[in-house]
């Protein structure tokens, strides 16, 4: 019975053994196949991608997003393309994967980003230095220009440019403090533009005006000589200094403050231009209180022959309207002391001063009106500084 049982168990054991062998064989083959597939598969571009990513990160830390925008955008685009190429290959059967393109794009990205980082740092440092120097220089120009502006009768348009340059340089300094050098450079450039334009326009205006200085000097000398030779009084009006000088026997005996028309720089050319004429005149008529609305007045013989010649030449050249008239009734009168240039071209004195002058002068007294009796040459420091500033702006760009 036992022998029979053992004969029955023998084939079953045999079957179990075979089955176990087969299972092991399949498992072994599977493992070998799996190992082969893993070994034959291409290595993913992880390292290359990480390198590229770190390079882009470094470029951003170097503010390439501000100073090398296009290069950073290119680098980020290459990184994205590298990732997409990697993704594309991951979707393929392992043995068919090829990460060459992803790796190449990552390498290109690394190069581009490293370049952007280096250039960005260089550009930022350079811009910081240029802006720092530029701010210092423009501030110096503004300060150099300040006395000129306070003493010279420049119009509000120029003054506005001056103030705008001050505001822009303050904004530039604020941006510089928070290390926004691009903004700081932009505002400093604006300040440089304003101060340069204001400086050159002001200098041009004054330089042009002072080109008459030799003639003014000659007129003053002739008037003083006349006073001396004729042992009589003569008046010299100095527009720049806003003073009226009274000479007697060739000696200056009195100085009075005066007020002029608002457009007092330059020569009167036509009626209504609110300018005070320049030239050698004489008192034509004296008007006592009651004969003038300005307390006392002494009318001068404007226009003289030179004034008329200048007027007709300007008209012929079309510099003034065809229906313009030369004007007249230019007086030295009272009601001055208002603290502003308010007349229509006349010379106004405070009433007590006018009284004194009125008493000392008579019809025929010479009245010489000049831009400046001193002939002080205009300062040109502002303009030369402005030129340097413009050069720096170009460098910053």
């Amino acid at each position, binding site marked *: 019975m036992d022998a029979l049982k053992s004969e029955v168990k023998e084939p079953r054991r045999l079957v179990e053994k075979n*089955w176990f062998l087969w299972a092991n064989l399949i498992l072994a083959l599977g493992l070998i196949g*799996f190992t082969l597939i893993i070994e034959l598969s291409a290595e993913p571009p992880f390292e290359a991608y990480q390198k590229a990513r770190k390079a882009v990160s470094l470029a951003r830390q170097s503010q390439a997003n501000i100073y090398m925008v296009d290069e950073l955008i290119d680098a980020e685009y290459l990184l994205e393309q590298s990732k997409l190429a*990697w993704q594309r290959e991951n979707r393929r059967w392992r043995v068919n994967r090829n990460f060459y393109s992803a790796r190449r794009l990552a390498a290109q990205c690394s190069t581009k980003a490293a370049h952007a980082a280096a250039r960005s740092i260089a550009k930022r440092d350079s811009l910081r230095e240029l802006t720092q120097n530029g701010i210092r220089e423009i501030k110096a120009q503004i300060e150099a220009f300040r006395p000129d502006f*306070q003493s010279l009768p420049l119009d509000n348009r120029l003054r506005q440019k001056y103030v705008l340059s001050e*505001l822009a340089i303050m904004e530039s300094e604020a941006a510089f403090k928070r290390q926004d050098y691009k903004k700081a450079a932009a505002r400093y450039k604006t300040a440089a533009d304003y101060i340069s334009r204001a400086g050159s326009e002001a200098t041009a205006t004054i330089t042009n005006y002072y080109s008459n200085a030799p003639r003014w000097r000659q007129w003053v000398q002739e008037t003083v000589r006349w006073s001396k030779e004729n042992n009589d009084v003569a008046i010299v009006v100095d527009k720049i200094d806003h003073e009226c000088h009274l000479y007697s026997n060739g000696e200056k005996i009195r100085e009075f403050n005066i007020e002029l028309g608002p457009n007092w720089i330059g020569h009167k050319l036509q009626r209504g231009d609110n300018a005070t004429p320049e030239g050698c005149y004489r008192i034509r008529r004296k008007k006592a209180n009651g004969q003038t609305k300005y307390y006392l007045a002494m009318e001068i013989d404007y226009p003289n022959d030179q004034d008329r010649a200048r007027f007709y030449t300007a008209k012929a050249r079309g510099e003034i309207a065809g229906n313009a008239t030369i004007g007249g009734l230019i007086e030295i009168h009272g009601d001055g002391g208002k*603290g502003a240039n308010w007349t229509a071209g006349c010379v106004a004195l405070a009433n007590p001063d006018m009284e004194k002058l009125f008493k000392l002068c008579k019809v025929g007294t010479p009245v010489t009106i000049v831009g400046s009796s001193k002939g002080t040459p205009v300062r040109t420091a502002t303009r030369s500084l402005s030129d340097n500033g413009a050069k720096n702006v170009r460098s910053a760009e």
Partner: protein
Amino acid sequence: MKVKTLVAVLVVIFAMTLIVGCAKVPQQELDAAKAALDAAKAVEADRYAPELFNAVKDSLNAINAEIEKQNSKFALFRSYSKAKTMLAAALAAANNAKDTAVANKEKVKAEANDLLAKIGPAIDDVKKLMKKAPRGKEGRAALEAMNADLATVEASVAEANTALANGDFLTARDKAQAGLQKVAAISEELQQAINKKLGR
């Protein structure tokens, strides 16, 4: 008995293969992190919290690399647990960048508003001071010039208000600060003239 054991082992291996092999890309978390970055960008985190914003951008790139690294592996060995951890940190960092940017922006806005609020009264004070200023020959002309300067400052203040309304708070603050400085300079100039007149 041995057959049963072998079958059990194979079933366990098969089940594990199914479980591990089914590991999915954490797309939801990835989308959430990207949305958080976009939200940070929308509040100008790149301008008001640039370092935090750049760090989040870099984190997302690192996460992409980690995900693709896992995608490159045999399905059986993929694991996105590291990517999930990184995504959770990136989401928190993006939210932090957004919150910091909003706070910084609000701070700059408040400073700009504060400065702009000070300019009006400062200009009024200068105008009051002008009434006390000397009005001699030079005085009147100087006052006229100062008035012109104030008008220029007021125009600049208007530009600052426009920048503020447009959400450009840094420009608004810079302009307001410059305007206030200029008004202070005019005031000082006036005060000196008044003191000079009073012989102080």
